């Protein structure tokens, strides 16, 4: 059974139908990439799966481990193991990064009927994960993402991901705004989370990220649906030929 299963999904944003009959299955243990031109609906898909308001599902289904994802609140989806690394992470004034993540971690644990993490245990974990991602620990004491560069925000997303240890990861253009060194660090962080009981959807506009996070499958999203699927070689093809062929096919 697939971990994530999306079937003939239709999503409306305002007046426009953005996702138009999208189907996708990601089995446990696999990493799937979604590539597509700007405006194809990649972020719309990721927001819909995460439960953002204003994204109206008008048809189809999406399940995580067989459970109807679309019936759950965003926080319930997170507690079930879904994590979205935002294309544009938000700034949260007045809330230190560590406070934010501890609040989130404990809320998830509570929802799952688990005990809260103790303060020393949390700090130990945070120090270890920050070191791996080469994040200055003092940065975690500052209000989350406030005044951070694009690259720092992306690194914070991966840090949050490492701390929350989700089962299904959606990375929405995590590579954008990263230089090659940062990209390698982030990719290492992501790869560290790969495992038989996890799965990932890696959304990207460029093939470059996929040199570091090797996908099992590549899908092309254009015009609100998956128009082609293949092995990693499909990403190379896209890099060489561009999206024109697929955009035409979707039209």
């Amino acid at each position, binding site marked *: 059974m697939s971990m994530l299963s999306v079937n003939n999904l239709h999503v409306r944003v305002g007046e426009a139908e953005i996702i138009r009959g999208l189907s996708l299955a990601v089995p446990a243990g696999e990493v799937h990439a979604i590539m597509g031109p700007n405006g194809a609906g990649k972020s719309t898909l990721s927001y819909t799966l995460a439960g953002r308001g204003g994204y109206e599902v008008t048809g189809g289904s999406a399940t995580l481990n067989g459970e109807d994802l679309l019936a759950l*609140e965003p926080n319930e*989806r997170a507690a079930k193991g879904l994590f979205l690394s935002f294309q544009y992470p938000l700034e949260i004034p007045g809330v230190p990064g560590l406070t934010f993540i501890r609040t989130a971690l404990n809320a998830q644990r509570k929802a799952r009927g688990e005990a809260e993490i103790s303060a020393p245990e949390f700090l130990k974990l945070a120090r270890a994960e920050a070191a791996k991602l080469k994040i200055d620990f003092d940065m975690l004491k500052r209000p989350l993402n406030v005044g951070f560069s694009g690259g720092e925000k992306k690194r914070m997303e991966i840090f949050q991901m490492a701390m929350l240890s989700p089962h299904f990861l959606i990375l929405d253009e995590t590579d954008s705004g990263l230089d090659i060194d940062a990209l390698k660090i982030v990719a290492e962080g992501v790869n560290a989370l790969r495992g038989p009981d996890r799965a990932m959807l890696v959304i990207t506009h460029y093939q470059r990220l996929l040199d570091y996070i090797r996908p099992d499958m590549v899908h092309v999203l254009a015009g609100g649906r998956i128009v082609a699927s293949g092995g990693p070689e499909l990403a190379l093809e896209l890099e060489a030929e561009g999206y024109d062929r697929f955009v035409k096919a979707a039209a």
Partner: protein
Amino acid sequence: MSLASALATGDVAELPNRRQEDWRWTDLRGALRALPPASPAGEAAAIGSGPFDGLTSDQIVFLNGRAQSETVIAVAEAAARTAALRWVSQTSNTAHGGKVRIVVAAGARLVLLESYEGRGEAYVADAVLEFELGEGASVERVVLAEDAADAISVSTATVALAPHARFAQTVLTSGAKRQRLETQVSHPGGGGELRLDGGYLIGGARHADLTTVVAHQGLDGRTEQLTKGAVAGAARGVFQGRIVVAEGADHTDARMGHHALILSDRAEVDAKPELEIYADDVACAHGNTVGALDEDALFYIRSRGVPEHEARALLTQAFVGEVVDRIEHEGARDAARAWVASHLEALA
């Protein structure tokens, strides 16, 4: 006209009403058809604990308007004092008022931890404070106001600042049926420094009015003001901040900010920031914003597993937290932080 004079004369016509420009959002006359009878003395043994207990044993208590000890809080030249001033209303359906003078001599320091503690219902309470600061004196006043939901409560503080003196204030309130916490400062300039901060967290049908008037009268004065509020339910927050820079009060530096969060459709905020400048070469600015919680930030927090009401509380606490962070006395800051945390539930 004032609540104090209405209580002294027994004449309801003395109550401030909405036809007065400064009281148009806090209509006491409209809220009180008649003045209730005078409050009883109260039971001093039963006043219970205050929000600053543990920070000082130097406590001045006004119980139902009656001073339990001194009516003048004095700090001698170059001395230092940390005192708790507690206004306890331990009564229902009655009225009372009290007055205290606070005299801080030259070079002296006072930390005044003040609380309004409602222990009854539907009382009418008035408090008058007169601060006099000597040259180079320093006062930090931290106020936590916790009145009953159906009480009418007014506190009016006048502050006579001195050259090179510093007066720093933070007023946090959860409101009442009608509540006004007012501060009037006469600022002589001369290197004097003033900070007037405020915060209101009000829900239900509560009302809170933070009014300040600062008169800059001499060269080289500084004033900074930050008030933040969150209103939920059908609550109403009022902020009136007036800074007058008199002719000749050149080089005055005055900044005023008021920012409010409206957490429900029925809640309301009325704000009137005013700068009147008659001097030259001044640096004065004010900012005023009223808005809702950022939906995108809320979604971001929820997407990390935090339920909606907790996410709202987190953002609201962070919003008001900016005011709390400016409290200088560490123990008072912690008490204020705990006070804010304990009032977020009422806004959910």
